[in-house]
């Protein structure tokens, strides 16, 4: 057992961090925000070239042949950098949707009952089957509906955007949302497209894990932001970080981020659905609460548009509702206890 990053993994993470710092540093991030650019096609292709989407494809198919542990390191960096766009859906679609692996296609995802992120920029739309609740995805899939996914492209996609979907004024300026206006609940039934059998449960779990990784990156980043502000900002003749009220907020932020880190990394190694649910639950909580505490540490400055903290908070809120939410995660984790599950190896 060696639950530490290998040298290759460290290099991958820092390399990704460097690419994002160079291509989507704070100045460009704020410029994209001001311009209302969520998906930058050029950047998307660069991400594709850097292997962001093809990471887990076999080398024979043009991928890097790496696994979920490497993928979570990438998505952690993406979360840290506030990188926008349907990164997870495009990553999942690599190999299944043309152009996804290379970053020449932008792929969005439809989860029933939820608005679609970045539909307007999408070249393809993954349509997932119904969500499982209260059980491990594979076990319940047969009970809760057809275990199927579609990839919707071309004319049907344009028809959707043109008619059966309407833009929503999104709480997160980096995440445009579209509401499917077909009769509620049935929307995913009405779509057809390339059938991608047997992937719904796996995509849901992998999507949840990668979203958890983004949450982790965000939680770690807001911890750094809070610490930096607390160390520099003076009030009452001292850095506010010297006051226990602020200091202890920061300490609790680190604890949340580090526990989430271990949960996310371990879930990436085991790919166990229960462990993924736990990782998502803890990472959601870490991202949301750390952004909240970061805002509190920043005081009035944290309430301004100029500070980045609101961007982390809003994105963290959105991700919390995606792939697997708190209620479903807790139910899955409870179900795991039913079997009298002992201690894992």
């Amino acid at each position, binding site marked *: *057992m*060696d*639950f*530490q*990053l*290998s040298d290759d*993994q*460290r290099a991958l*993470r820092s390399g990704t961090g460097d690419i994002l710092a160079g291509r989507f540093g704070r100045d460009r991030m704020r410029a994209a925000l001001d311009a209302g650019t969520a998906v930058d096609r050029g950047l998307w292709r660069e991400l594709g070239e850097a292997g962001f989407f093809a990471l887990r494809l076999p080398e024979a198919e043009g991928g890097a042949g790496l696994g979920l*542990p490497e993928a979570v390191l990438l998505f952690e960096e993406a979360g840290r950098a506030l990188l926008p766009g349907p990164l997870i859906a495009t990553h999942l679609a690599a190999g299944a949707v043309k152009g996804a692996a290379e970053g020449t296609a932008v792929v969005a995802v439809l989860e029933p009952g939820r608005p679609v992120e970045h539909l307007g920029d999408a070249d393809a739309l993954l349509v997932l089957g119904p969500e499982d609740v209260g059980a491990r995805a594979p076990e319940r899939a047969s009970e809760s509906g057809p275990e199927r996914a579609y990839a919707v492209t071309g004319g049907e996609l344009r028809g959707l955007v043109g008619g059966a979907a309407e833009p929503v004024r999104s709480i997160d300026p980096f995440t445009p949302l579209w509401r499917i206006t077909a009769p509620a609940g049935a929307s995913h039934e009405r779509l057809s497209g390339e059938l991608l059998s047997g992937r719904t449960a796996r995509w849901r779990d992998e999507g949840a894990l990668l979203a958890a990784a983004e949450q982790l990156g965000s939680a770690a980043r807001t*911890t750094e932001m809070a*610490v930096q502000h*607390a*160390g520099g900002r003076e009030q009452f003749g*001292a*850095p506010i*970080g*010297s*006051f*226990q009220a602020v*200091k*202890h907020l*920061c*300490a*609790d932020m*680190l*604890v949340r981020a*580090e*526990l*989430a*880190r*271990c*949960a996310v*990394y*371990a879930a*990436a*190694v085991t790919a166990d659905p*229960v*462990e993924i*649910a*736990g*990782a998502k*639950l*803890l990472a959601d909580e870490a991202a949301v609460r750390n952004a909240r505490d970061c805002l509190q540490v920043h005081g009035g400055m944290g309430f301004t548009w100029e500070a980045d903290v609101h961007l982390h908070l809003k994105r963290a809120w959105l991700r919390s509702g995606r792939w697997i939410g708190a*209620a479903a*995660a*807790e*139910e*899955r*984790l*409870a179900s*795991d*206890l*039913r079997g*009298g*599950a*002992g*201690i*894992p*190896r």
Partner: protein
Amino acid sequence: MDLAYTEAEEEFRARLRAWLATVLPALPAKPAPDDWPGRRAYDTAWQRMLYDAGYAGLHWPVDAGGQGATPTQHLIFLEETEKAGAPYVGANFVGLLHAGPTVAAEGTAEQRARWLPPVLRGDEIWCQGFSEPDAGSDLAALRTRAMRDGDHYVVSGSKIWTSHAEVADWCELLVRTDPAAPRHRGITWLAMRMDTPGVTVRPLRTLAGSTEFAEMFLDEVRVPVSHRVGAENDGWRVTMVTLSFERGTAFVGEVVACRRTLAALAARAQADGRWDDPVLRRRLGRLNAEFRALWRLTQWNVSEASGPGPGGRGKGASGTGGVPGTGGSVFKLRYSHARQELYETAAEVLGADAADLDREWVLDRLSSLSYTIAAGTSQIQRNIVAERILGLPKGR
């Protein structure tokens, strides 16, 4: 990131399991909680069995009589003994986990030869005389005074929170030898025989009704200078250096125990219908996430400590490791709170039975009230995390 154990580690685990399966059924019945001599005898007999089987001082260096095992082997040992329901370290705690490692790291060859083997064999047990009534969170405020008189120190003062004091042979004692020096600089580490004249032990009753701890009063107790470990006035450093021995394994057994308790709570809730309450069920699910993650954090810390050097790989990518005791602070903050939450949830599962001291988990709930206080309050731990890991400035 590799969570699979190596072949050698699996072999170690298998051998241990086989041994446990042989010896545990033959163990005598556990003594009563307040039967201190009985508990000493039980705990030291277990230690002798470990010694004979080659498991004593597993994590100690070989030149100190230990097995020089890796942190991962130590983790496996703690995990398997907890799962098998083996006896706890109990009365051997201070000797094996603190005083012994201190002597091993800082003692002279003579001191090591005198004190270490009896600890490993279970022949002698130690207690700890660090805290004082006015020096709790602020340990360096200790006032127990030691005056040099020829080849002895003459020690007077009082100590508190001393476990197993009634039955210990030795006490690792921190005393003040230079009251004029800065707080951390005038402290000395002494090994004191508990049967020295002038030592009085008085049981200290906790809110759980038990007398797990004691107060210790020292009235001109004569301790030979040769029982000093490290230099005079260097006791603070001597004591702190021992923490690096821990190497991430401090709470392995406890996390395993929590996960067993959680599974038992779920089983109980299912048996009596409370499982149908989603509020309770989701709370149990949440705790499952919590303790699974704490187990992974333990593995992380142990892996981090497995690198070269006393602190392992140094400050890792996560920022939790490196400074001895700080990764531990991150863990302890979350764990102590989670375990209290576990017993609060147990009280929900028990319902009206939570008022019955004879029900499982009820005494545990009372004991758990100390977790956010003992061995550094959560407030102190947050200071450590904020100042030593995050680098925030000290308070004015």
